[in-house]
């Protein structure tokens, strides 16, 4: 593990490729994972590179993952690609998964997981909004 200076000169904690970290990691600077972490992570930002993997309980401001993640993730904003393994829970204020062309590689492969992002409109409120205009009952179209 080392502190590196990134392109923008801000300090980052780097778990380099080939490094396997087990345990709790708490950092005041951004964490970049090219190797693997098994355990808890708390940091302002976490970047998981395509070669990286994080399994555990994570609480960060920004999460960008192109690698493999599993466990419980709590973040303000999440940008996902790579793989989301089984039994993963992601809670985020904002979540983004870019849609790749059908001909291209799958952007994200999801295992069994739960995602809780944004603030869904209440079902009743959505129904009320949909029926606020002129109502008319329709019948199902001809098959």
């Amino acid at each position, binding site marked *: 593990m080392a502190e590196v200076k990134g392109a923008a000169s801000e300090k980052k904690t780097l778990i380099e490729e080939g490094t396997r970290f087990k345990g709790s990691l708490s950092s005041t600077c951004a964490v970049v994972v090219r190797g693997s972490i098994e355990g808890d992570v708390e940091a302002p930002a976490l970047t998981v590179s395509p070669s990286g993997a994080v399994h555990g309980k994570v609480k960060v401001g920004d999460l960008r993952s192109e690698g493999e993640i599993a466990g419980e993730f709590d973040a303000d904003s999440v940008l996902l690609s790579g793989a989301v393994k089984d039994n993963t829970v992601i809670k985020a204020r904002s979540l983004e998964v870019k849609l790749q062309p059908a001909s291209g590689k799958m952007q994200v492969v999801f295992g*069994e997981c739960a995602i809780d992002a*944004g603030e869904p409109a209440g079902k009743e409120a959505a*129904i009320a909004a949909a029926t606020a205009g002129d109502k008319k009952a329709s019948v199902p179209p001809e098959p």
Partner: protein
Amino acid sequence: MPSLQPDEVIKKVQKGESLERADLRGVVLPRAVLDGVNLRRGELDGANLEAASLKRANLKNASLRETFLVGANLEDANLESADLEGCNLENANLRGANLGRANLEGANLMNANLSGARLAYAELQSANCGKTDFSHSILTHADLDECYLGGARLGEADLRNATLRGANLEEADFAKARLDHAEMGDANANLARFVSASMQQVNLSHSTLTGADFTDADARKINFTGARMQGAILTGAKLNGVVATDAEVAGITCEWIDASTEGDGSKPLRNAQIVALLSGKEVEEKAPTRPQGTRYFGKGDVLRNASLEFGGGASVEIESLFEHCSITIGTGTELVIGKHGVLAGCQIQGAGNITIHGHFFEGDSPGIVGPSQLVVSKGASLVGAIEQPESFTRFGFEPGCNLRVKIAKPGAQSSSSKGNGRRKK
């Protein structure tokens, strides 16, 4: 000969003396430490300042023609209106520097770092900016005609009203950049990335855009006249008012585009509609122009307890309220829940492509079974479980979408769901 010798320059800098208007033409000061020096209106033409440290130096209105600044550190330096014509700044650090109205014509900025630099109205004609980092920089009204920007990084840069006529932009990255009103005619932008860029009223006429990526770009009123766009990617681009007369669009990847005036996703177009739009044909708002095979459920309609089945390849758009309905879609069917559409207590099954701009709340769980593609746009809601097909679902979640979802692996039989466990056949 310069009026000051190198050791005299160093001494003056160490004493904190000003070198304003100093004549340092041809001076040789490699690796010199000149941080914070005041060289305003100084003359440094042809000087050798290789790897020198000039952090926060005041070089406003200075003349640095043909100056050798390879690897120099000019972080936060003031180079406003400086003359840097033909200057060699390869690998230089110009982060946060002020280069407003500077003349960089023919300069070499290869691999230089200009992230966060201010270059409004700067002149960079024919400059070499290969692999230069311009991320987060300000290049408004800058002149980049015939500039080489191959592999340059311009993410989140502000290039509004800039001119890049005939520039080489191959593999340059303009992700989230602001390019509105930029003049980019005859540019070579093969494999350039304009993902999520703002490109309203940009002129890219007669440009080469092979394999260029415009995914999610706001390209309303963009001009692609005569452009060569083979293999370009336009999925999710906002293209209201696009002009693409005589553009070569063979092999473009474009699953859907947004043709709405406001660029709010309210007018998604697919297939033949996109071809019509790029051909300059008006795609009208009303239902009669929808392609054959499209089923449209308008705003204000309410469907309850209905079972609907749509064959493969159909196109279905729902702007209505569906309650407790079961929808089966065939392979390749495009099902769009429009901005006003609400599906409450419903279930969708089948290997189609689902796009949600409105709201979906599941009934029986999993609410969505076997989709080959599922997109949830900004402001849309999806509450329910998704069971993926054997080939896995291709997901697209836009920032600002609202999700309470459980995703199950192929064949998981909704083991992760917390619904009532029943599955409709």
